[in-house]
């Protein structure tokens, strides 16, 4: 193929204007030649024979007339065995390997293969010669950590294909030809264990998209019980700075019952990713007994890394998620923060001098956000099994005000809204998910009527609290006061959860159900109190015993005893 080339005619921030010869396509990748360095960039607009390109690196030192080499390819990721456990930048460069090669800093233009080219994988074929396959069919598998990594027919191949050759079981590197496929026209094609896929194009090599129903257990009580998420669903976590978005996602990334977790650190602090990438190898996944890192992929394009690569990182993470979903796995992708991705879009749009919308975001903001969350889903695969990709994004609204374009566009498309509140965070009521404003369209793991009843008490309790601010405690009836104390109790012992306590941080579904039954008994019981002080005293004592219980391992000796203490305390004051 004849690749095009061009010369720089303008530089403005990370945007260069390029005069080119030949034919190029939108989103094509090109390299800006800067001495020995090749700076990767992407076509974002074409007018006549001038291309506007966002450069994924600093543009310092570029000048008019510098050469640009187009690649004929769209921005793509490399798919194949060996992705799990990796730490990539937004363009899928492996960061530990870059560190080994270049030391403390990320030099400009440095780039390395995403997958290990030398390593041999033990391949077991799943098809034989003469079989008919389609894009996404499994040709074989190799063991990758805890899974059988499926080797699939590349997603870009069209129609039915006949297997004319399949490699015997054995050890191969990813570039080795493991199959030859023939299409209806008789064209043959070699297939290896790896192929590329453009990040901005959803993978659709499945039979059907289904409605997400099964809960994705996060072990965060307020989520599973009150605002559940589903496998293949979407949820967003908006909140002002410091309200606990990142901590919540970190907790979920550790404890959620997903097969693969992809953490996309998009334009946030580098330090936060470090906690994940240093700690995960040391932690065990209770489901597999293996290191948590073996089920995790980290995509890391933090705030001081180039802005254009930040925009790409969200798509890179999603594409890797879709890839593992195609193997019949339940994948959870956590993006922190989608606002930084949207801001990257805004910076780009500004440099393109597009007509700005609200808060200078581009007019297509809403459709980009919708397209992104649409890539989540529960799908029926070619072999009849299902796989899912659940997408969660944090949102960092300007001024903490949800009435802004990114939050509003996100709320239109997600299945659950876990809104973090400033007031709760500052009162240290973590996780600071607002129990009155948040919502979910998915099914909770607890009986729905009871959850609704509990929520009603929360809302009544809040009503009493607000009223008390006006009329004072003396103007409040004992009954109302009891409702208020019940709401506070539910909040303190069930909704609040200590992310930094080894036991309390994650509550298994069975334990959640059990806890909730006890809490529910308290909420629905009529008590005989003589005074408000007595009522307060009672609830504070009960809270104390309950919190102690929360910190106890379910297998611990005192666990059952502590529960008895709670029950006898409840009985003592019951009517």
């Amino acid at each position: 193929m004849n690749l095009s080339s061009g010369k720089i005619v303008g530089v403005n921030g990370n945007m260069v204007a390029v005069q080119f010869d030949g034919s190029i396509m939108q989103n094509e990748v090109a390299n800006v030649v800067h001495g020995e360095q090749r700076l990767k960039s992407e076509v974002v607009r074409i007018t006549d024979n001038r291309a506007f390109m966002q450069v994924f690196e600093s543009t310092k030192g570029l000048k008019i007339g510098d050469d640009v080499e187009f690649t004929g390819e769209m921005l793509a990721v490399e798919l194949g065995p060996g992705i799990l456990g990796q730490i990539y930048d937004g363009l899928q460069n492996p960061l530990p390997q870059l560190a080994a090669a270049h030391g403390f800093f990320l030099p400009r233009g440095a780039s390395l293969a995403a997958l290990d080219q030398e390593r041999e994988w033990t391949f077991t074929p799943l098809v034989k010669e003469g079989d008919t396959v389609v894009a996404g069919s499994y040709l074989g598998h190799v063991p990758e950590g805890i899974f059988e990594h499926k080797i699939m027919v590349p997603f870009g191949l069209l129609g039915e294909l006949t297997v004319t050759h399949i490699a015997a079981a054995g050890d191969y590197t990813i570039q080795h030809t493991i199959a030859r496929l023939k299409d209806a026209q008789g064209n043959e094609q070699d297939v290896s264990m790896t192929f590329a896929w453009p990040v901005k194009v959803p993978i659709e090599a499945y039979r059907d998209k289904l409605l997400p129903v099964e809960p994705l257990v996060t072990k965060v009580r307020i989520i599973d019980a009150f605002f559940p998420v589903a496998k293949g669903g979407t949820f967003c976590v908006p909140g002002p700075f410091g309200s606990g978005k990142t901590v919540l996602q970190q907790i979920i990334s550790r404890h959620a019952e997903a097969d693969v977790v992809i953490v996309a650190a998009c334009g946030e602090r580098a330090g936060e990713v470090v906690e994940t990438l240093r700690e995960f190898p040391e932690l065990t996944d209770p489901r597999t007994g293996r290191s948590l890192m073996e089920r995790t992929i980290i995509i890391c394009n933090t705030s001081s890394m180039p802005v254009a690569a930040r925009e790409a990182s969200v798509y890179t993470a999603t594409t890797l998620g879709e890839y593992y979903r195609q193997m019949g796995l339940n994948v959870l992708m956590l993006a922190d923060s989608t606002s930084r991705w949207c801001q990257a879009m805004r910076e780009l749009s500004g440099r393109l001098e597009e007509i700005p919308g609200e808060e200078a975001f581009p007019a297509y903001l809403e459709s980009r956000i919708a397209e992104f969350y649409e890539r989540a889903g529960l799908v029926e695969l070619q072999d009849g099994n299902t796989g899912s990709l659940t997408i969660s994004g944090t949102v960092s609204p300007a001024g903490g005000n949800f009435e802004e374009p990114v939050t509003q566009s996100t709320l239109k498309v997600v299945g659950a809204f876990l809104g973090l509140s400033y007031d709760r965070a500052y009162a240290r009521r973590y996780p600071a998910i607002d129990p009155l404003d948040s919502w979910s369209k998915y099914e909770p793991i607890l009986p729905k009527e009871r959850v609704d009843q509990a929520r009603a008490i929360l809302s009544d309790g809040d009503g009493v609290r607000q009223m008390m601010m006006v009329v004072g405690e003396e103007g409040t009836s004992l009954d109302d006061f009891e409702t208020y104390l019940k709401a506070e109790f539910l909040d303190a012992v069930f909704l609040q959860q200590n992310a930094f306590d080894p036991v309390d941080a994650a509550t298994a579904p069975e334990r959640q159900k059990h806890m909730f039954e006890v809490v529910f008994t308290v909420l629905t019981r009529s008590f005989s109190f003589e005074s408000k002080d007595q009522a307060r005293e009672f609830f504070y004592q009960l809270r104390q015993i309950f919190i102690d219980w929360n910190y106890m391992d379910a297998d611990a000796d005192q666990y059952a005893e502590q529960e008895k203490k709670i029950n006898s305390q409840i009985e003592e004051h019951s009517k």
Partner: protein
Amino acid sequence: MRRVYNKVQQISGNVITVEAEGVTYEELAEITTQRGVKSLAQVIKLEGNMVSLQVFAGSRGLSVNDEIRFLGRPMEVAFSEDMLGRIFDGAGQPRDGGPSMTENFIQVAGPSVNPARRIIPSRMIRTNIPMIDVFNSLVVSQKLPIFSVSGEPYNELLARIALQAQVDMIILGGIKLKYDEYMYFRNVLEEGGALYRSIMFVNTAADPIVESLMVPDLCLAVAENFALQGKDVLVLLTDMTNFADALKEIAITMEQVPSNRGYPGDLYSQLAARYEKAVDFEGAGSVTVLGVTTMPGDDVTHPVPDNTGYITEGQFYLHDRVIDPFGSLSRLKQLVNADSRDDHRAIMDGMIQLYSQYRETEEKRAMGFRMTAWDQKLLQYGGLFTSQMMSLTVNITLEEALDRGWSILADCFRPEETGFRSELVDKYWPRQSGGADNPDASMEETESKAKAG
């Protein structure tokens, strides 16, 4: 290649445009006016042969025939031990009458640290300020602003932390600093005996605004290089709101579409590029960044504090001359407060929850409601907490502060009213409560006890 031009096409704000060839992006140029005054300028846009530069000294007095000489290099700063004790301006030139630095120049705004080479911070920086040490511990390599409003003693707080913190070096960046503030810092560092381990880059209110934009980059480049040599460096930047305002001015001149209240859409990225220079190098030194962000109208949702909060690892909110536990947060505290003492976290959370209840009660009281027995307890607690913990006059170690915490609690409550775990209560709750004496209680503490009880 021709490097000298003397035809300015356009002058707008602090930005000039010249027609020139072979110029590279972000290259520096030197402008000499007809009267022989020199200023640096930096390339901020290339469009064909039209080159836009921001002029460090501002465009006042520039004429279309001034000489522009391109230097063929981007912004650099000297790096050497000789800079200790010295004071420079925003262009990196001496402002203390000492000699110019002529050797060993390094690039500013260099590449970012590979996240895979970062380590989890683990060292507390003790300040002997309980509102920091107990409630929001400062950690080596942290980036943390002081949110405040004019009139508050934020520069005093900054200077006090700088002097009490155990670090090897202090680099002060003054951004549109008032002249008396500049003198204040100089004197404090000198009197505290810290000048010999300090370097200052100071742009005062009277200096050119474009130069103020360079100050953070100069400070951080020098800090980073000292850190690579094994030094623990504390960088102080005051006031970053002025930095953001300078960015805004340039953006408007360049006719960029503002995103929010006139600030450019890349304000977040611009601020992050600076704050993210904070780092702990494995096997070498570290850079810790403490900034001041004044909040116009005491409004934390203003774009500058708002974007800053999204970048930094917490903030100290200084108002009414105390560090307010609400609005203040050290995000890294949990990395260092687990192993300090086993009651550290419980005291931190528990005392704040009660303080929050006290504030509600205080509101009710202000509205004239009858106070219940519980309210009375909270009021007593709030009084003690304010005077014995929050006051900036308190200067005690972390351990002393934790002990003081238990004794305040015991003065006001019974253990089960506080929600503390029983094992901690057993271990730390003072045996006889009520009037537990505090040997180090100051005058004002005794006073407030009398008031509350």
